[in-house]
């Protein structure tokens, strides 16, 4: 039965793959292209500046973007399932504010960290509740909480700042692993990335996220608990904002109301540039990890060459347009290749 079926099919199917076709498939993959851009960039910078490939410099450069990188991880899940969260920077502000207040009233380092994480989870759950249980659009809810969360910090702090933290609290954002030059932030990010890779690409949870992003209704008809998963994504996002808030507050040693301002779009940029479709359902974690280091080292390299921040913004913007445009062009090339290959 099975065999006859396969035989019948052969005539209508086109599935032979030549080496060339395989190469086309590989090199039109977005992650591979990003990696090539990344390598090219490193070569260019190392030619232009003798300080770029310095181990000490490279490791220290990580401090400037690891907090954003950590939030990009759960943001993949949020965007993948077709949602968006533009309140992340404000959640950081709220977490940092809570930690500052705790520290000011004499809390120890573990308590401060715990408070930061819990406030993050609560803020994420707050977003998730309105988006899934009430059914409001994610963009509207997080636009509102963007003001609300930071507003709380601003209202209480006004133009003051919390600047006293226990000495041991400084480790999270400034510390290195043992005697090496490897920042704790980098190791934490890589560990979290492995966990998130597992969840997204190996677990049933990740499969459901993909299903929701591709078709909410088909996922629902297949018994996927759509609301619960979307809610969990927002909670996860809040928790990671809490982690980032611990690192950032620890690194700069103070809490001001404008902490992390403007990070929302930077983090969404990392995710979209990494190849995650803003419509949901497509992308993977590898692309995002490459885009994190690509943008991070681009900023570092341009700093070494004394190129102004404005140019940096233009470059990021251009890359983002390319990120959206290129996959569309690549799809057309692939489709074209298939036809000419068959016609030959």
């Amino acid at each position: 039965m099975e065999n006859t079926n396969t035989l019948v099919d052969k005539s209508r199917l086109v599935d032979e793959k030549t080496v060339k076709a395989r190469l086309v498939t590989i090199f039109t993959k977005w992650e591979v292209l990003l990696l090539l851009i990344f390598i090219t960039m490193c070569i260019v910078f190392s030619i232009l500046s003798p300080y770029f490939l310095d181990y000490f410099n490279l490791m220290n450069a990580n401090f400037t973007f690891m907090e954003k990188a950590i939030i990009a991880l759960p943001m993949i899940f949020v965007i993948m399932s077709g949602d968006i969260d533009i309140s992340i920077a404000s959640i950081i502000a709220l977490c940092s504010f809570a930690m500052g207040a705790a520290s000011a009233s004499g809390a120890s380092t573990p308590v401060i960290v715990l408070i930061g994480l819990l406030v993050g989870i609560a803020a994420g759950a707050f977003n998730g509740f309105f988006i899934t249980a009430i059914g409001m659009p994610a963009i509207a809810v997080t636009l509102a909480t963007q003001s609300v969360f930071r507003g709380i910090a601003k209202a209480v702090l006004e133009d003051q700042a919390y600047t006293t933290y226990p000495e041991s609290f400084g480790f999270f954002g400034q510390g290195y692993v043992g005697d090496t030059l490897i920042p704790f932030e980098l190791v934490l990010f890589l560990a979290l990335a492995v966990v998130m890779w597992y969840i997204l690409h190996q677990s049933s949870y990740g499969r459901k996220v993909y299903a929701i992003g591709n078709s909410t209704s088909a996922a629902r008809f297949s018994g996927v608990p759509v609301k619960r998963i979307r809610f969990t994504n927002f909670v996860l996002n809040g928790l990671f904002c809490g982690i980032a808030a611990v690192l950032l507050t620890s690194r700069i040693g103070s809490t001001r109301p404008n902490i992390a301002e403007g990070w929302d779009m930077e983090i969404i940029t990392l995710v979209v540039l990494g190849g995650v479709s803003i419509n949901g359902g497509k992308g993977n974690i590898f692309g995002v990890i490459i885009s994190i280091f690509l943008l991070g080292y681009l900023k570092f390299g341009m700093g070494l060459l004394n190129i102004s921040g404005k140019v940096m913004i233009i470059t990021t913007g251009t890359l983002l347009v390319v990120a959206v445009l290129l996959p569309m062009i690549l799809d057309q090339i692939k489709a074209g290749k298939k036809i000419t290959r068959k016609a030959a």
Partner: protein
Amino acid sequence: MNDNILELRGITKYFPGIKALDGVDLNIRPGEVHALIGENGAGKSTLVKILTGVYTPTEGKIFYKGKSVSFKNALEAQASGITAIHQEASMFSELSVAENIYMGHHLKTGKFPGSLDWRGMRKKTKALLDDLELDIHPDTLIKNLGVAQRHMVEIAKALSIDAQVVIMDEPTSALTLREVEDLYRIVRRLKEEGKAIIFISHKFDEIFEITDYFTVLRDGRYIGEGNVKESTVDDIVKMMVGRSLDQMYPESNAKIGDVILEAEGISQTGFFKDVSFKLHKGEILGFFGLVGAGRTEVMRSIFGIDKLSNGTVSINGKRVHIHNPKDAMDMGLAYVPEDRQNQGVILDMDLSKNITLPQIDNISPGTLIDKKKEKEITNEFGSMMEIKCAGYHVNANTLSGGNQQKVVLAKWLATKPAVLILDEPTKGIDVATKASVHKFVSELAAEGLGVILISSELPEVLGMADRVIVMHEGLITGEFTREEANSENIIRAATGTTDDIGGAA
């Protein structure tokens, strides 16, 4: 011999993973209505798109007026006189009739660069409409016209560019009988004027009424052609499906067992009221009704997608509370939804992921997906349903409608259900797949599954169901055993005319 205005030779078209057309020949003569016949998925639409320049053929040649041509886009095809009137009229509803007719080939005054001759266009539109004996004003907005009138405007548009070949893709599917008569009148006129008409239709009465000649496609291949007057319905059906009609419905020999699913007085405000029925093991229970009768809503709420406002549901005699599809699945229910593309499959996911989605938790001990198990399930149920695909790693959107439906069936059968609810399972799929779906359904019933079959196709309900429940405007208006059921009493119940003496309509 060679008086053809349009000739296709060996047209072949590949799409990723599938050969949509395989060496199709077609001969179109002026002054003739040519029926293009084939099941859904036979390649008719692809062929039309090649003729109108939307697709370029991978192989093969098109000869138009004796010359080999290749159209780069729809505008080029239109300019040389080939135009198509589509199934769902593709017009700009916010623009007027005249604007629509001259869209893409506006008349210009020539006074200023780009200035349009509206007066001329209105005048000519009026002449065209008068010519077709249509009582439509050129300034009427399309959105204010009925479906039939829109079709007529499309035809007027075809005439405005002096089309030599007019393709009509199921033009009567949305028309009333009277409007169909109008369409026939116009088709006959076009024929007299020496235009060639390609008429795509599923309906045999139509084919025999209006067409002169036919070509049959099956599975993207040219099967044959012939003179309509010298052929019978059975000849054409044989060519379409490769066998004759009477084999269509499988024999039912399932033993009817105990009640497995029972609904008592279930209601959902605004959709259905006081619905009660029993489903037995091994039984195929047909649900017939007109669109909007509430059948789908009943099943959706039993499956936990919508909430019931009243009534109880029992499985194996025990009362159950189903809050979401997961609960329903855990109790052995499976629901193949009506809207295959939006609710059934996930188009951008591969077949294997589609098939295992409902039970992804069961094959993920401690969160990690067991890839080996996933492959086993996919292979078992994929080959059981005889899905035609380039492998289970391809995305569902590369498959034909019929094969997508097989994926949905595979995905639900893989959950090993005790009750299978099928909502219009054969809507829009080809005859061969339809027959294999029917075969599977009766085999499943024979294995002791309870099957609910919602269908708007009377022959399907009559051919498949052991018992038929008929709904009308949210209420059950009839229940018939296989012996009692006939088209007359079912239709009467479905339209609400329960009174034997005729009564109110």
